[in-house]
């Protein structure tokens, strides 16, 4: 479900699924929690493969942000226009830092 790698001490997580929805949200949340428990506190979630997110998928991303807490950050990139509309509609675009590319996210988080 997740491709992960580390760059500049930042964990980059890229779901390799097209739908982050109710059928996979619990599994995604658990996998993210496991990664965070292992000490990863700066995470880029690259959603470029994901074409559809529902409220369960969105909730699992929010849960991951809360699990990291205030001592780290979970930022997003690779969000398509459709999913971006959902972030704006739910006002979650005010919660997450959203970058247009993974490179931009790495560059800004590395400072």
């Amino acid at each position, binding site marked *: 479900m997740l491709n992960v790698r580390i760059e500049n001490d930042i964990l980059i997580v890229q779901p390799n699924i097209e739908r982050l*929805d109710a059928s996979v949200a619990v599994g995604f949340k658990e996998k993210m929690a496991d990664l965070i428990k292992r000490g990863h506190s700066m995470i880029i979630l690259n959603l470029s493969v994901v074409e559809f997110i*529902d*409220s369960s998928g*969105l*909730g699992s991303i929010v849960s991951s942000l*809360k699990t990291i807490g205030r001592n780290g950050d979970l930022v997003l990139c690779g969000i398509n226009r*459709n999913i971006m509309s959902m972030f704006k*509609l739910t006002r979650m675009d005010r919660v997450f830092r959203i970058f247009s590319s993974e490179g931009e996210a790495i560059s800004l988080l590395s400072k």
Partner: protein
Amino acid sequence: MHVKQIKMIIDSDFKNVPLISTVINRLCALTPFSGVKAFQIELCVIESIHNAIKHAYGNEPDHAVEVNFALHPNRLTFEICDTGKTIDSKYLPKKGVPSFEFDPDDLDNLPEGGMGLSIINEIMDQVVYTTADGINKLTLTKFFNANATKR
């Protein structure tokens, strides 16, 4: 007035839901809605089906979720029907009442769940929930003309 309709029935298993997604995508191609709007309509129907599976049927398989699509001259409607537990009306968001009124900086109180019905309410022009003869029906309406009467 000529109305085109299609009825779909799936088993209450999440793995079947993407099939409906595919159909809705194609059905929206028959309407003025495309791109982001078509995605948002698809999202509303999927949220409704997920609610039926999760809340009406308690995540149990082997129950029917029926989706009826109707293409009218000025709007499209979806009816999502189940024969499971009825939604308590207190959980149905009211049109015109703002949703998503959380503080984006209050990390501990960010919503993780319960957003589905609010998303539906924001996107669709009309959302009506009825129960009769053991059938729960959520009817979603989207007018082609954004200025059409909404309520």
